[in-house]
């Protein structure tokens, strides 16, 4: 080893005497270690806090939300977001802690919802108090998680993923078709789930006779659930079981050789995740007042995985933040007016953040280009500037006075859209000054496409934007917001 070269050695065990991770991880985190910015300081400070303090900081301000927000719509979004955060944290147990790809997780959620419905609705005419119904549902879900986890003893990795996925499909099919189950020795058929029509007579939750009636109540219940689940999982993660899970995740063979009960650990991960999902499912059913099979399908699973991975699998806080951010962002994009705001905001911030000092020049270039094109069009082909208003907000009107707005966008919109995609991809290949110069017309084209094609269809544009952002985010930060960078030797 050459002298004199400063070498960044792996750090010694930390203040809580937890051993640092292995060399590969260290290599992967080298870039993060070089950063000394405010983000790293903030994260380190956060990591030093006690669990109770962390929960208080996270949950405390949220508890005041019902007093600040009086719109039922946003309270509904808040309740769903809180529930999804709990779900994401539960999924994190199997995926993040133990490294098992559980693609059937939503089935436990659905099971919890339907189980609660059976116990507290008009369907079987049982009206259990939530104090008895909820523990029953949680235990039943954990048992189901255990059963689903049994194949994990023989199957690894992607094969286990596929079996859990099949379980989800089986569950969904059962939900859709279990309204005509014929029991031998009995006349007629039993209607378990009322098929696609769902059960819409679910009782509101009542604890010891006190009923939860308003959205605010359910929101506080969800927050309490979140705190309890997060607290329990955090303690579990810091215990021997958590360390065993981490070992299992990093290298299952080595863990087994170190005489860890690998099978039991896997089953435990499945069961606990399922229990959390079942609990959430019961609150979801009670809050909605109805359950339908269509709510528990692959689409929700995809969202949950997005929360977990974008937030950083393995980090409870990251996953919770991921759930909150993405869910709220999707809801923000749902209101057509917000779509334009978000788009232009993102565009401006991206330009400024990437280009820094050259941003002003590029922006000026785009504006000038726009005016030039508009003048040219007014002279040569006026129909290109007389289209009707498409957007709904002042931002749209402002931009529409500046950008080309053809009256008849018949073929132009398809060509422009595909052209924009091709242009952006080509742009990523260029370097240096050429890139900067090319940025101007490409950004203009982006604004053109937005105002003429996408803003008319906000629901579809939402998903296009979401898709593009997911790709960009993962390319930039594959470990998610709060995940630890990991290197996998394949």
């Amino acid at each position, binding site marked *: 080893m050459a002298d004199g070269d400063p070498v960044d050695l792996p750090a010694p065990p930390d203040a809580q005497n937890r051993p640092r991770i292995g060399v590969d991880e260290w290599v992967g985190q080298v870039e993060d270690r070089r950063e000394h910015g405010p983000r790293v300081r903030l994260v380190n400070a956060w990591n030093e806090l006690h669990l109770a303090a962390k929960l208080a900081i996270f949950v405390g301000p949220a508890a005041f939300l019902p007093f600040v927000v009086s719109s039922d719509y946003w309270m509904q979004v808040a309740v769903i977001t809180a529930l999804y955060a709990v779900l994401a944290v539960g999924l994190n147990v199997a995926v993040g802690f133990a490294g098992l790809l559980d693609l059937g997780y939503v089935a436990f959620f659905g099971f919890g919802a339907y189980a609660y419905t059976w116990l507290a609705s008009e369907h079987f005419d049982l009206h259990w108090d939530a104090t008895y119904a909820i523990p029953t549902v949680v235990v039943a879900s954990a048992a189901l998680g255990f059963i689903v986890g049994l194949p994990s003893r023989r199957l690894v990795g992607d094969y286990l993923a596929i079996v859990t996925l*099949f379980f989800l499909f089986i569950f969904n099919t059962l939900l859709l078709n279990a309204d005509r189950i014929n029991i031998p020795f009995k006349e007629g058929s039993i209607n378990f789930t009322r098929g696609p029509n769902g059960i819409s007579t679910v009782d509101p939750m009542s604890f010891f006779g006190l009923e939860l009636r308003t959205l605010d109540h359910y929101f506080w219940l969800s927050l309490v659930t979140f705190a309890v689940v997060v607290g329990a999982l955090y303690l579990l993660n810091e215990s021997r079981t958590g360390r065993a899970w981490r070992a299992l995740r990093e290298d299952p063979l080595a863990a087994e050789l170190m005489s860890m009960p690998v099978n039991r650990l896997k089953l435990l991960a499945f069961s606990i995740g399922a229990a959390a999902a079942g609990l959430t499912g019961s609150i979801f059913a009670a809050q909605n007042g109805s359950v339908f099979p269509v709510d528990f399908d692959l689409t929700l699973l995809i969202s949950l995985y997005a929360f977990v991975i974008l937030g950083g699998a393995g980090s409870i806080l990251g996953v919770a933040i991921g759930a909150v951010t993405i869910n709220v962002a999707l809801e923000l994009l749902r209101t057509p007016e917000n779509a334009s705001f978000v788009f232009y905001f993102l565009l401006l911030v991206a330009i400024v953040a990437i280009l820094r000092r050259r941003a002003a020049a590029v922006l000026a270039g785009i504006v000038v280009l726009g005016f030039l094109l508009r003048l040219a069009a007014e002279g040569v082909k006026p129909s290109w500037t007389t289209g009707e208003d498409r957007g709904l907000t002042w931002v749209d009107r402002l931009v529409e006075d500046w950008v080309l707005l053809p009256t008849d966008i018949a073929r132009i919109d398809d060509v422009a859209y595909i052209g924009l995609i091709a242009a952006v991809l080509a742009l990523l290949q260029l370097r240096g000054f050429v890139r900067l110069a090319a940025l101007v017309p490409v950004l203009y084209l982006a604004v053109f496409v937005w105002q003429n094609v996408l803003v008319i269809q906000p629901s579809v*544009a939402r998903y296009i934007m*979401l898709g593009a952002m*997911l*790709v960009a985010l993962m390319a930039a930060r594959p470990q998610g917001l709060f995940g630890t960078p990991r290197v996998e030797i394949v």
Partner: protein
Amino acid sequence: MDWTTFIQLTVNGLTLGSVYALIALGYSMVYGILKLLNFAHGEVFMVGAFIGWGVLNLLGGAVDPRVPVWLLITLMTAAAMLGAGLLGVVIERFAYRPLRNAPRIAPLISALGVSFFLQNSVLILYGANFKTYDTFTLVDPFSGIQLGGVNVWIIRIVVFVSAIAMMLGLFALVRYSRLGKAMRATSFDREAASMMGIDVDKVIVKTFFIGSALAGAAGVLVGLVFGQINHFMGFNYGLKGFTAAVIGGIGSIPGAMFGGLFIGLAEAYSAGYISSVFQDLIVFSLLVVVLLVRPSGLFGRATIQKV
């Protein structure tokens, strides 16, 4: 024993199964080399179907084709394969290459993003209505061969035969050509392969191209046989193709072929003989049993893990 029903169901199963197999091949190939589950593959299949439809309409549509039918179908398939292949290459370049060294779960989200993007782009460009290939106008529904009392439509034969041909071609490519050797080497040990002078990036690009081209061909074939395409079709077919790849043993090419046919036949027989209501249930339960009995898939090699 009702032979007509059996033959009919077998024909159905083989047609559908060969399409699943083509899609599964793409999954298996990519997984073999990169250990990556390319969940955007179903959308590449869908784009291939739309490219085929576009070419069909460009050349006059089913009602008044300007070229002979067989040339038309060949052109559609070729265009779809080319287009889908290029799309696969672009996806690899921009969505997966930056994640080459990231944990395997990260490309899942990237694939999801690509999937959302493609699905909804097609929705915006083409609209939400189903588009039809109108194959019955193109090819007489009663033309075909008689097989034991059952009339097997010629398009079904075309689909099956071309799928098998493509699969055999791929098998030969992997087995006997230099590119195939490079692919096998890369999938065995990527670092060693690059040290032996194989341009790993190029091999990966070519793998993606071939896999996606097969999916594009599958898209056109599906359009021809079943007539209707829609922006959401990639979801289901992609899922079934992925299932077929895993059942056959992911990473194994014969496995993907066999897995696809297996699933197609299982669907046909369970719906035909047992119940159409519980068809999905039966098929999935069967697949769970298969995986429990053979944990690495039907053709999968139980890999020896080096400690």
